[in-house]
């Protein structure tokens, strides 16, 4: 599969000025949000990005679309390197973002017709009959064309999502970034949005980057997943393989933490210990060692690299093997 979007060694850091900088002088001048992210999104592929709050998921999405300046590494979209303002302007025509809160991302003072045709006007397309054009766009996502004359507050959460899907598709993008596409939707409605996305993907050959902390959603809609922890990729692999046999201890814990809607599958011990550390105080060595049940001396000192353990399966762990991390030998404690 040829890569539509290739990120190589991507770093994003924010200036540690102001109060944070003066209180924590040890930080230096910048706080690292994302470090050394090398990841690709293939043409027609759906990539899932998973991680806890504060792991850098949304920052990565923004960096991809040029909404967040990068401090290191490179981005190549469809064979052309990104960097200058012009290259990002071209990129934005070929990509679209579906934001997390659909109602907040639709201006409350504009009718749906104007909201849907605005991307076309911004990118210099002539729109002869905005209402008719918007009506066609609404119908393509399964909404009545008459909805073009409504305002966002008149829509339900599911309808607002669909409008955001329609707007994201306005310019026939090749890559759509969906940030938490089912957040705030009821179980009975979220299937509609996921089915719509899957349908559009096959019909239009779209690539998707789906960001979610809902593992069951990720499991159903993505081809490949990447797991972020404190701004670093810790595991990348095909969705099926990762869910069937997670290799990094964090991935194993994350998958085991998902509550099961089946009382017969209740497990005695669900809980991963501790909390995600702050990016202001990154642990030394492997960043996961503070919560890892297998952590050894080496993990506390030496930072592991992202290694390809099997074909297409990358893991950042000193002790990961094809059977997952090995148990700590008791004498080493």
């Amino acid at each position, binding site marked *: 599969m040829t890569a539509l979007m290739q990120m190589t060694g991507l770093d994003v850091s924010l200036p540690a000025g102001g109060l944070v900088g003066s209180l924590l002088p040890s930080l230096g001048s910048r706080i690292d949000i994302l470090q050394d992210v090398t990841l690709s999104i293939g043409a027609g592929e759906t990539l899932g990005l998973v991680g*806890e*709050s504060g792991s850098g998921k949304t920052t990565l999405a923004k960096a991809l679309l040029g909404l967040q300046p990068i401090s290191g590494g490179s981005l190549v979209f469809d064979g052309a390197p990104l960097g200058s303002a012009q290259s990002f302007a071209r990129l934005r025509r070929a990509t679209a973002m579906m934001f997390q809160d659909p109602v907040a991302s639709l201006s409350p003072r504009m009718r749906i017709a104007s909201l849907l045709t605005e991307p076309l006007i911004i990118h210099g397309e002539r729109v002869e009959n905005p209402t008719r054009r918007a009506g066609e766009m609404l119908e393509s996502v399964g909404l009545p064309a008459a909805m073009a004359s409504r305002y966002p507050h008149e829509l*339900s*959460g599911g309808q607002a999502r669909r409008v955001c899907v329609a707007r994201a598709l306005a310019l026939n993008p090749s890559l759509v970034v969906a940030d938490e596409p089912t957040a705030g939707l*009821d*179980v*009975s*409605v*979220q*299937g*509609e949005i*996921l*089915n719509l996305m*899957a349908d559009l993907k096959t019909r239009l050959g779209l690539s998707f980057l789906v960001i979610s*902390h809902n*593992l*069951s*959603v990720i*499991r*159903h809609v993505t081809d490949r997943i990447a797991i972020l922890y404190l701004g670093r990729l810790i595991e990348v692999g095909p*969705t*099926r393989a990762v869910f069937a046999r997670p290799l990094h201890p964090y991935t194993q*814990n*994350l998958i*085991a*933490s*998902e*509550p*099961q*809607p*089946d*009382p*017969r*599958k*209740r497990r005695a*011990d*669900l*809980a*991963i210990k501790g*909390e*995600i550390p702050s990016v202001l105080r990154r642990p030394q060595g492997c960043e996961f060692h503070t919560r890892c049940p297998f952590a050894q001396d080496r993990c506390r000192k030496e930072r592991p690299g992202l290694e390809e353990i099997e074909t297409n399966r990358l893991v950042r762990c000193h002790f990961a093997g094809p059977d997952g991390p090995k148990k700590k030998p008791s004498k080493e404690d």
Partner: protein
Amino acid sequence: MSGALLSVEALSLQFRSAKGAVRALREVSLRADPGEVIGIVGESGCGKSTLVTALIGLIGANAEVTSGAVRCKGADILSLTEAERRRLRGQDIAVVFQDPMTAFNPVVTIGDQLTDFQHHRGTLSRSDKRRQAEAMLARVGIADAAVTMRRFPHEMSGGMRQRAAIAAALLMTPAVLVADEPTTALDVTMEAQIIHLLRELRQDYQGAIVIVTHHLGVIGELCDRVYVMYAGQVVEEGLVDDIYHRPRHPYTAALIACDPAHIEGQAASLPTIPGRLPDLTDPPAGCSFADRCTIATARCRAAPPPYVRLSATQAALCHEVRP
């Protein structure tokens, strides 16, 4: 219904609005016994939150109870005076809310707040109350309870704040603990830890726990019995295993089928429930779910469905179920 710590008896409640009365709860009945964990599950607009506010007597000024009662240890909460209700909250019934940030006063330390919550415990000195608060923080798994006592809410993570909120609710050892979406604002690993904590607490807690959530996984992991709500009504009740493996009401069955966590492997398309909730200012004459139901008949649209008792523990509000 003797013995129940909490019972709701045919409670109907409506809100006044410009468009007329919104029938938010219709003939809701449920009970929770000592040592039991019950779940109330439903989607947005089913009346879960209204029910929670009714349980603690916090219904708004535009709400009106048209019939029924909420009894906690036998006393009808809704007919008490405001002063009596104040005494009841915290002592007999306590709530853990969804958002652990807004549950605390942002300018008072956690320790001072947990001490003040014991205001009605007249026999204890203030230092005893502080000790009690610290012990409770340790009980809910906060490692450095003494330090946490001096912290302000913003200095704690979401998971820690939710632990502190559970500690606050349990301080007066209430007979009934209501948890309204206790894990919705948390990450999956924190969610698992809170589920773990609630499971552990029930071991030595004599009261009843009521979990209100839209998350089928949380109910599956925690509860003994479940009430499924739809459009302001309880449409099915049963043991958690029966509800998840032998649901009888078509809505319960459809809801469980929709949860992607329930589907093994990758499905080509995910099931949904087409249609929308009925307008609660003018609920349908027949079954509220009839328009979205796959087995609905003319009778379902014409006449209100009976609450059919299917076994000692299971019942469903449906024309089409048979014992």
